[in-house]
């Protein structure tokens, strides 16, 4: 009986409501070993570390009662730095009223990626000592050139770091790879800086000059090397099916449609802005001509009517009519029915009949007249072929030509079933 009870007690339901009691409400004499028999849930800390001295000290202090505040796990200290924070981090930040939205990358925000070190600084000082004041190379220009050197050799010799026999690129080759990140002011210094770059590059066995992380190189040593990090995850091969093809087509289609829509929107915006520019030009013209007129008036000694020349005559809107109408419309339903004169309410059958006959008569007469007007000057031209109007005339906007048509792109041919 006792064992049966114990087994029952062990079951703890997470769905059932459990009464909440204070410690004083619970009979302490009752052995609560049933509770103890619920196996401990893992702490989640690695087994080997669970027993660590400091962790255990804090845990046991916490279990002893709420005085754990002063016991903590000691960690190596962070101390104040002696660097000039204000100089390194200027006060440039203005918090916008709305939440920040931002998508530029680090590369977008750091300018030329090469940062010169003490060795470069010494070289640059020496270089500038030989040059007249106005031809000095600034640190920024130096870095622009160095970055360009690094970038070009990275593109031309991606495996330079793997194969130590790769020759260092010549100046001509490097300059051939310069793009528009190298501004005209920096270009002339390339020849001056090249020997320095080449020396440094040779010292580092043609490795990149900026310290870089170690990425996988598909070498056998990669796997155990703790410095190799951020490996790619292999792409999972997706099975090619008709359904997926159709899906891809549909998606391309949607993209195209969205692209066209946004393109059209852009076009409309351009049109709008052009119209605005036109209008501004017109306004300016008007203003100038008015000035000319004014001059003319002055020279002729006419003094009145100046105001009209300065101010654009805008027809004032007539709000009264609208307001009045609104008032009338508002009042009518509020009029109590009993106050209305009785006579006006009575509709006589004769009147209605006469009205109807009248309207029919006028309608017939009208149509008779119109028919005569239609046939006026009638010439029979039916033997001539009917030509469609010119296409350009039909398009309401010759500037915008839609590239969109509902012809589906040919779906890519399914892969030959090598796996089937």
């Amino acid at each position: 009986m006792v064992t049966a009870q114990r087994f029952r007690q062990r079951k703890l339901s997470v769905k059932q409501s459990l009464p909440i009691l204070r410690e004083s409400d619970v009979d302490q004499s009752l052995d609560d070993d049933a509770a103890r028999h619920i196996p401990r849930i893992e702490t989640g800390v690695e087994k080997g570390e669970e027993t660590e001295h400091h962790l255990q000290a804090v845990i046991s202090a916490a279990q002893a009662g709420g005085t754990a505040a002063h016991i903590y796990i000691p960690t190596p200290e962070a101390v104040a730095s002696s660097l000039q924070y204000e100089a390194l981090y200027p006060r440039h930040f203005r918090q916008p009223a709305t939440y920040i939205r931002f998508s530029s990358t680090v590369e977008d925000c750091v300018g030329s990626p090469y940062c010169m070190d003490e060795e470069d600084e010494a070289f640059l000082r020496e270089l500038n000592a030989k040059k007249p004041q106005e031809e000095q190379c600034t640190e920024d220009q130096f870095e622009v050139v160095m970055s360009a050197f690094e970038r070009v050799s990275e593109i031309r010799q991606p495996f330079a770091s793997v194969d130590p026999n790769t020759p260092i690129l010549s100046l001509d080759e490097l300059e051939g790879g310069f793009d528009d990140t190298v501004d005209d002011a920096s270009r002339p210094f390339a020849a001056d800086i090249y020997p320095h770059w080449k020396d440094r590059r040779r010292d580092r066995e043609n490795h990149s000059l900026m310290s870089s992380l170690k990425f996988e190189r598909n070498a056998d040593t990669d796997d155990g090397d703790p410095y190799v990090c951020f490996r790619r995850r292999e792409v999972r091969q997706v099975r090619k099916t008709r359904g997926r093809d159709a899906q891809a087509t549909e998606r391309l289609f949607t993209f195209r449609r969205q692209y066209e829509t946004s393109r059209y929107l852009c076009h409309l915006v351009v049109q709008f802005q052009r119209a605005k520019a036109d209008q501004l030009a017109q306004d300016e013209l008007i203003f100038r001509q008015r000035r000319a007129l004014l001059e003319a008036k002055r020279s002729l000694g006419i003094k009145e009517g100046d105001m009209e020349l300065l101010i654009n005559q805008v027809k004032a809107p007539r709000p009264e009519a609208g307001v009045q109408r609104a008032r009338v419309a508002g009042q009518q339903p509020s009029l109590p029915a009993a106050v209305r004169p009785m006579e006006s309410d009575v509709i006589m059958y004769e009147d209605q009949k006469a009205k109807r006959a009248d309207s029919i008569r006028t309608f017939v007469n009208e149509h008779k007249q119109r028919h005569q007007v239609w046939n006026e000057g009638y010439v029979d031209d039916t033997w001539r072929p009917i030509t469609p109007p010119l296409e350009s005339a039909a398009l309401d906007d010759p500037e915008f030509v839609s590239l969109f048509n509902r012809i589906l792109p040919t779906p890519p041919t399914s892969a030959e079933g090598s796996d089937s």
Partner: protein
Amino acid sequence: MVPKESARESADTPEPVEKGFATLSTLQVGVKAFVEKEGEKRKAEILAIQSKKGKLAFYVHYEEFNKRLDEWVPEGRIDLSKEVEWPAPEKPEKKKAAQTSKASNKSKADAALAQALRDKKNPKRAQQRQARLDRELSGTPDSQSINLPGKVSRASKAGGKENREIKQDKDSVTVISEVIDGTPKAEDEDMVDLMEMADAAAAAKAQAPHEPFSREEEIEKLRTGGSMTQNQTEISRVRNLSHIQMGKHEIEPWYFSPYPQEFSEVDMVYICESCLSYFGGLKQFTRHRAKCSLLHPPGNEIYRDEYVSFFEIDGRRQRTWCRNLCLLSKLFLDHKTLYYDVDPFLFYCMAIRDEHGCHLVGYFSKEKESVEGYNVACILTLPQYQRKGFGKLLIDFSYELSKREGKLGSPEKPLSDLGLLGYRAYWQETIVDLLMDGRTDANIEELGATTAMTTNDVLHTLQNLNMIKTSKNQHVIVLTDAVVAQWKKQKEKEKIKGKRTIDSDKLQWRPPVFTASSRTWNW
């Protein structure tokens, strides 16, 4: 029953350790010697040896202390007047004869039950031990070079671990924990018989492949998600940077991080507070600062109050920044792995603001889609901002996101020591707050649903605080005097200092949706 019991005891008995006196020249990697630390002699394992100007320096790990306290010590601090433990030579798994079983000093009533439990646990534990041993084998660095991975040395740590386990067993059997279930969402049945599930789990493990964490399995696990490793070979054992400079602080790193290899030779690595780029020299760093225009983490601000801002950053879109962040946080997270790239993670970065910009205080990463239902992968408050309540804000925010998603969440395991304490404190406060609001009963699942905590975590918290008891043949939740006292103390502190929480009205966020293709780490 009896033979099984004794077999278990034998498995936990430490192998005899080879001891003897050593001289400076015979000391080698793997040797455990007594080293002076803060006036006390502590047993420590030598992980690396370096010779500087004719003097030897030893990189030591103190037993029973976290790796962040590992350090280089001069030869003078090693006590050679005491015997040292030599690393055990490699040997096949022994199956020793039964030894005298230590009488358990527990009540008879307990014994019968505990016995049954132990019997089932036995095969699994033996295996875990085996696995751990194997792991350590491959994790020990070579004796000549510092931390040269891949080379296998002797099972140096085995003795120490064994000792630890014995000690644990003597203290109490109940400390030994069992995996209830890996997935937090598993509690579907109406009644969860924890005991039975634990046994089932143990049985399943017994039939599982020999080694629970083989390197290949671990890497496969990492490939499909996850950012924490339990594999010792993934953790480099000797710290590589001596100091870093960041913002207004100089910080001593705690663990190894795969920064460029040449940084291990410089005294100070400079880290830009805005873009987290790293530089080995001051000139380079000042030049970088002159050009760097980033003023806040490069993503969308999704939360702002008077005190902090949160930014959401996609690992795929901000690869450089997120890599930099991971490198930095690896300095302070032992089990974090940088084996794979940052693409499948989102990074939620907390920053404080001033006129200089937004200063990163801490962050947590989160898998875009977690198979195991984790709502946090890695979580870190930067050391210069620790012990100021930021960790709790970070945790609070992670649960706030889970609430918005309508999911229950739990942090990825393994937790660090600081992580465990941080989470426990948060869980305790959250749950006790709910229980103290005047209600007379509560059910565990509902508690989880209102706090976005998994049932397992709620249970863990209640159990850890000794709040689940039986009264009149049924389970009850007991607000113990200690818990109530702590709660009152906390409330008083909040009255004076004010309480910092996450205001869900200020969170402008919808759970991001990723198409299958963007989620499956394609390039």
